[in-house]
């Protein structure tokens, strides 16, 4: 699953009030005692933790909505919506909403018509006219727009890290503010959710295309990952890139994005997390006052398209001007299947430190790799997912040689894993649980993540308990059942100018 890195980070912080010499058990007790949760009548979950010496708060507002909730038509909508929720409301972001509204309607009509024509009749004479009209309308509309409205208020009130992110599983909106700005935050964010106005949509869509160019189309590794996931998942929506397909974003409909908002961003899928120095009773009052009036709405249907079982290896090569890169993934069950915890341990044994199996064998001893890592729960954790090994070969070796050596290491898991090795891995995980000292923002992110994706932040506490139960026999059984060639996806990045990786 998930954490290893993540979890780990958290707890340390939490133990900010735990006496020296505390172990992870104390930390779990600390969290149970000090994390306060509330459920608002409309279904919103509120999580709070009072901690720290500085009068600051980290806020995270999260929805169990991600690209896994999209269809082919709406691929990229969750991420596009995240961008659009920075554009303001009917009060913030405008100097005259009554007048602005007329332009918004005309812009949408023109934009939608233009998009459809470009798709259905790209040679139409109407296209240049519509483009000119859209540009003119946008220019006139801009007179009523106050751009980046939240950002200005937040920065001058001491806000840092104002941002948001979208993954396949969830979407989160973050900021850190001085503790005295709790009410300001609640007022702004509740308005942002109640009355969003998706203004300047077609301009922002261009920015998202630029983002895609940066992350995927100009990056060999970015494009490799996109193809790797789409190869591993043939039917499940995990196959859609979070940012959307390059051929889809330019036609992503404003209406679809709006509809996505009103049907998916519902209170029962929402978690508010506040971590830092605070009076939690007061926080509850403020949150109730501002977020309480948000009306509950019915839950949309869950995705019903399951991934068909893999019945043989899937393999591809992506050519791009780049150094070579190797990705290998094995499909496996997700949480709450106990094997997910077993794969957490496998990840630790394989790549949990510089003395772990893969680094030691491939980088230090055989000198065939320049980097190697393994992780569990890719590209999301809400559904069946992948255990992945990523590696880069040293220049005198090929991707194929490296791949072979990785399989040799994976086969060793089917032999015995020594008890000492298991113990060492557990120690590292438990120790990192304390040492990964994080700030308020990281703690908030972790609590929010567990609540949003797993439905209960206390899954975080059960994690170490489950890890302690994993046995060498479990690891052997998981390796035999899942880490074989018929359950495997392999992606290679090769430079066409370098002999396609045969260097």
């Amino acid at each position: 699953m998930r954490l290893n890195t993540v979890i780990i980070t958290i707890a340390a912080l939490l133990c900010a009030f735990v006496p020296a010499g505390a172990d992870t058990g104390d930390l779990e007790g600390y969290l149970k005692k000090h994390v306060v949760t509330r459920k608002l009548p409309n279904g919103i979950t509120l999580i709070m933790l009072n901690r720290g010496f500085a009068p600051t708060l980290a806020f995270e507002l999260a929805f169990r909505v991600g690209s896994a909730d999209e269809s082919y038509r709406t691929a990229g909508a969750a991420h596009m919506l995240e961008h659009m929720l920075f554009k303001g409301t009917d009060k913030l972001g405008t100097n005259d909403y009554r007048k602005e509204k007329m332009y918004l309607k005309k812009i949408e009509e023109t934009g939608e018509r233009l998009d459809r024509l470009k798709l259905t009749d790209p040679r139409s004479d109407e296209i240049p006219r519509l483009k000119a009209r859209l540009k003119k309308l946008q220019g006139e509309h801009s007179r009523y727009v106050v751009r980046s409205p939240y950002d200005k208020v937040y920065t001058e009130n001491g806000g840092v890290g104002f941002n948001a992110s979208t993954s396949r599983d969830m979407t989160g909106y973050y900021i850190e503010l001085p503790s005295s700005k709790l009410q300001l935050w609640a007022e702004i964010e509740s308005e942002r959710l109640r009355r969003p106005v998706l203004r300047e949509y077609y301009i922002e869509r261009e920015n998202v295309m630029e983002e895609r160019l940066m992350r995927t189309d100009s990056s060999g590794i970015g494009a490799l990952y996109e193809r790797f996931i789409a190869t591993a998942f043939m039917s499940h929506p995990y196959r859609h890139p979070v940012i959307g397909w390059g051929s889809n974003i330019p036609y992503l409909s404003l209406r679809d994005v709006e509809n996505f908002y009103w049907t998916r961003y519902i209170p029962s899928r929402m978690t508010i997390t506040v971590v830092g120095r605070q009076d939690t009773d007061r926080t509850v009052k403020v949150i109730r006052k501002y977020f309480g009036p948000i009306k509950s709405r019915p839950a949309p249907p869950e995705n019903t398209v399951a991934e068909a079982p893999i019945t043989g290896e899937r393999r591809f090569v992506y050519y791009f001007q780049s150094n070579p890169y190797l990705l290998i993934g094995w499909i496996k069950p997700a949480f709450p299947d106990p094997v997910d915890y077993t794969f957490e341990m496998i990840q630790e044994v394989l790549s949990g430190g510089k003395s772990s199996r893969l680094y030691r064998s491939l980088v230090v001893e055989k000198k065939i790799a320049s980097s190697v890592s393994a992780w569990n729960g890719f590209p999301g954790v809400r559904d069946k997912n992948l255990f992945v090994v990523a590696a880069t070969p040293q220049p005198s070796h090929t991707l194929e040689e490296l791949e072979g050596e990785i399989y040799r290491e994976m086969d060793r898991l089917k032999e015995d894993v020594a008890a000492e090795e298991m113990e060492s891995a557990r120690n590292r995980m438990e120790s990192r649980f304390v040492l990964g000292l994080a700030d308020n923002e990281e703690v908030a992110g972790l609590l929010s993540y567990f609540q949003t994706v797993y439905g209960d932040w206390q899954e975080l506490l059960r994690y170490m308990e489950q890890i302690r139960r994993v046995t060498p026999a479990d690891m052997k059984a998981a390796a035999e059942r899942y880490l074989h060639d018929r359950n495997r996806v392999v992606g290679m990045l090769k430079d066409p100018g370098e002999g396609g990786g045969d260097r």
Partner: protein
Amino acid sequence: MRRMMKLRFFCPLICAAWIALPGITAASGADALPVDLPPVRTLQTSCGAKVFFVGDELPQLTIVASVGYGRLHENSESAGLCDLLARTISLGGSKRYPGMKLHERVDSIGGMLSVSSSFERTVISLSVLPRFREEAFSIVSSLLTEPNLDEEYLLMARSLVADEIRRRYDNPSNIAFDRTMGIIFEGKGYGAIPTVEKMNSFTLKMVRDAWTKYFGARNMLIGVSSSIPYEQIRKDCERHFSSLAPGEKMDYSVDAASVAATVRRNSRKIFLFPKDIPQATIVVGTLAPDIRDDRCYPLALMNFVLGEGSFNSRLMREIRVKRGMAYAVSSVIRFRRNTGVFLAYAQTKIENVAMVLPLLKGNITGMGRDRLPRQDIGWAKRSISNSYIFRFETPMDILGNYLEREYCGLPEDYYERYLSRINDVTDGDVMRESERLFRGGLVTCVVGREDLRETLKDQGEVVLLK
């Protein structure tokens, strides 16, 4: 999993890390809470190493040894030697903890060990649970006093660092930043860019010499953050860090006049690094003053308004928000002990380059041409003041500030006075210092398709980079 596959609304290409931090300022607002920062204790070991200690409520021990040696001490002949030394120490360990034994030990105690070099410093840091205090001091002191710098680990380190250099240039923004700084700083200091060929020419003797030259007590600052009482830490430091060779404090120098002349000479050119990708990366830059220069305050405000202040900064507003022409656009100004650098960048599709480049440059030079509106400078001051507390959020933040102050030779009250210095800046100061900063022009570097040569020729002499 959280760390993967998450797209952020805003993603800066370079981190405008703040160095300075203010004094004990509470959050603004009527209901502001008092700030209760932990005190920092200092001591000097008998060999001259200076140690800073800050208490932590968290049951942990972090030891940071910060050595004054980094890219700024290098030139085109030695670029990357600091990286090689750090990697060799990381792989080879010490005489007491050689090679894999070091990592087995660190992993078994659940420690987090890092050895790395940056522009000004090479840092060894280790975090453990308090019960491993003795072993942690032993590991760090042995890495500092008896690193295992032998041929086997050097070869391994060289191969890994060389591969990182190769892979670094798969990313167009790395190419653009490195090339821009290489031109501005004439291949020295900030402009010392490692190459695979140079890396492969470094010998064991060069690595050992670098260690001998820089890893002396007088050229090192040690920071400790822990829940363990100060008295115990003091004894541990005396015991483990008193046998360091005293060495000498090492400094680097930058010939500002020469750098300024180089910027002027190249300011009408556009350096184009051809790469066949659909998006171009544009970087412009120039020399900035060092951290002890009073010009830092108006220039910090200028940069906030220009490109650092998030979505309301001018570059972001003009290029991304209003026109939809870039996802990544920003500026950074960095003041260091003896030098500084200003850089601004934008990434845009090839078709937009001819429009984005003049927008980028026009907004930058406009900072020295027009007085900042009162509301802009007020916004920047309020933002910097009200967020100042975040520079003191954790004990490690506080420790970092003390190390920075000591290393840069800043006055004792630097952090306490920082905000009042910012608040004293006038719009005239910002305009005057911006004009002075940009008077010599900017070095421009574009990474993108070779046909940009034709597109850009109206905006300057296009020089093709290899």
